């Protein structure tokens, strides 16, 4: 027993060593889904993102063509050092080629550096910081689903035009919140609105009372919630208790996911405006995917845009590998090819990936339906406006990313 175990260990060590030294093209790929599985972003990404990556592997049909593609996952607990340690070990020991998802911008930015150092591929769907494709852009990174520029632009512009010209921010005190506040403020002032002030709260706060009272005292027409996940739902619920909406102020969730609306219920959430890039009930293709997805989810939830982004990004990555005729295990090379190939998937339609790693697709401004308008389970949104792909993201001439300068 011990001897066979020793042999097994030796063989696997040899195989691993062989894998490390032979940087040649083969038909293996390993995808690591790194996200929050136990805390405030677990519903937005979590196990659903892992499922989405697995479905992408199945739908790519590569396993039937002799490819061996593994999907593994881990919980980064929203801690940058836990995230970087897992990522490093994945590259060094597990020979992972791709890290996908990674919500929480602070962890996302840290992973961005590790992936660049290890020449892997980073398919970001969960983190929102537009810095990933601007100031900190990397030739190894594709930023798929959304970013703070899109959220700010979509929601900020629409609300100012509808008369919400004075703003007060309730901001999560970390990279993502700061970026969101900065970008939204720019949009609001550019469209003739005014920023009256803001307050910052720590990540994962349960008591928003003092922050909400400051927001109420500011008398701003719009209280912009520059936070995400559990923080957003908590602040909306507590805002209702303080009578902020009934007092005439309007809440703008700058980043909302369908899982948040599901948790809040239509009674609390009705009438809110926000921007997303994916909704399960958008067309026949999204409906077909979402039905398959929700049947395999433990709580039968519909996919969020983050999970949809993991699916679409993984699918495009696998298509690229197929086009390359094998996996070269060279992140820069694979990402370059991903940018070269136009994207086409059932969830985001046709699109492209820009030289800075930014995936371009339309954004949608949604409004949450009233309880009376909802006809079937998960029937939550109505489409207010579509933001075309070329207006949705940071314009090329405004991005400091060196990859754009040819």
């Amino acid at each position, binding site marked *: 027993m011990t001897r066979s175990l020793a042999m097994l260990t030796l063989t696997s060590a040899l195989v691993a060593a062989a894998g490390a030294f032979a940087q040649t093209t083969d038909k293996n790929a390993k995808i690591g889904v790194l996200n929050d599985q136990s805390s405030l972003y677990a519903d937005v990404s979590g196990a659903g993102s892992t499922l989405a990556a697995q479905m992408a592997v199945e739908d790519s049909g590569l396993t039937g063509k002799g490819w061996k593609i593994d999907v593994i996952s881990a919980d980064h607990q929203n801690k940058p050092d836990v995230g970087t*340690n897992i990522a490093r070990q994945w590259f060094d020991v597990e020979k992972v080629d791709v890290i996908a998802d990674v919500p929480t911008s602070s962890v996302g930015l840290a992973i961005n550096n590790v992936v660049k150092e290890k020449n892997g591929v980073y398919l970001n769907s969960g983190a929102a910081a537009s810095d990933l494709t601007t100031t900190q852009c990397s030739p190894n990174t594709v930023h798929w689903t959304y970013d703070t520029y899109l959220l700010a632009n979509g929601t900020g512009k629409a609300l100012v035009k509808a008369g919400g010209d004075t703003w007060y921010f309730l901001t999560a005190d970390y990279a993502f919140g700061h970026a969101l506040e900065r970008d939204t403020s720019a949009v609001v002032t550019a469209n003739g609105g005014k920023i009256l002030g803001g307050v910052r709260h720590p990540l994962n706060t349960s008591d928003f009372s003092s922050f909400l009272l400051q927001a109420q005292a500011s008398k701003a027409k719009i209280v912009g919630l520059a936070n995400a996940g559990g923080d957003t739902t908590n602040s909306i619920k507590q805002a209702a208790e303080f009578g902020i909406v009934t007092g005439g102020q309007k809440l703008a969730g700058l980043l909302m996911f369908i899982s948040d609306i599901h948790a809040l219920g239509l009674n609390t959430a009705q009438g809110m405006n926000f921007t997303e890039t994916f909704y399960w009930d958008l067309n026949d293709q999204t409906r077909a995917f979402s039905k398959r997805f929700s049947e395999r989810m433990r709580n039968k939830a519909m996919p969020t845009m983050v999970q949809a982004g993991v699916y679409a990004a993984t699918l495009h990555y696998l298509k690229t590998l197929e086009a390359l005729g094998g996996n070269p295990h060279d992140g820069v090379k694979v990402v370059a090819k991903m940018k070269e190939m136009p994207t086409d998937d059932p969830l985001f339609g046709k699109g492209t990936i820009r030289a800075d790693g930014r995936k371009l697709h339309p954004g949608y401004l949604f409004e949450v339906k009233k309880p009376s308008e909802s006809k079937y389970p998960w029937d939550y949104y109505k489409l207010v406006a579509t933001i075309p792909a070329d207006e949705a993201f940071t314009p090329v001439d405004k991005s400091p990313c060196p990859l754009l300068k040819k």
Partner: protein
Amino acid sequence: MTSITENADIRQPARSGSEHSIAIAAMAVILIVLPWTGVYPYFIMQALCFALFACAFNLLIGYGGLLSFGHAMFLGTAGYITAHAIKEWGFPPELGILAGTLAAAALGVLAGLVAIRRQGIYFAMITLALSQLLYFVYLQAKFTHGEDGIQSVPQGKLFGLFNLSQPLTLYYVVLAFFLFGFLIIYRAINSPFGEVLKSIRENEPRAISLGYRTDQYKLLAFILSGTLAGLAGAVKVLVAQNASLTDVHWTMSGEVVLIVLLGGLGTIFGPVVGAFIIIAMQQYLAGFGQWVLVIQGVIFVVCVLAFRRGIVGEIAYYTGRSL
């Protein structure tokens, strides 16, 4: 307090020095060889940093009988100062570590002067309050970059000679720092100073009646513990290449209590064993997702119910040695 610390073996023979030297040498040899056995070096480095952190904490609770619930402030402060000094001021790694450790020492003086005036639960609460105070300072301070943390800290070259971006070089540097800190703690425990500390733990009024200024001993122990916890935090920056709020959060203060209880309170090797177990769980169970914390909790409960002296503490008790 005594209910926790009475487990620490006081029946031990005074002359166990040679046994200890052998055990320490054996530990050093194991740690020197370990990265060649296929264990992932980054994992051992992370564990060594936490082991030093836990040893420093153990000096205070295991020998001084003072339960600090804010030790993360030393770990985190040293981490931030080291990261900032290396990244923004361009310090070489050895000066960065020195700066971080000195900052932790200074903090130890200030926090110690306030905290040692009270005992037991009040001491724990004061240290917790101070560390929470610092947590919110670091959350808002510009130089820490809030939740983002200080990212991609360059590892550089130690003394201009050793390239720390080589995993094995970094490993032996981390090991050297760990052994240095460990030996300081061992020396402190087995010195007259350590004996006085133990007597304070057992019966403070009696120590006072014998003419010892117990406040000064406790303050010194607090500063030493904080400084070495800071050393652990400073070295950790070179390993993780970032300094973040995780290290100043109160959960980190709780984690070190867990490590020491699991390994064995008031034992020399207990904190090291505890650190390796906890870090191994975090690292290798990460794939279980949300279950990591549940598993950690179950192990803690089992430990408290089944072997209250901790792993090393139980071994020491049944073999009749002090370990």
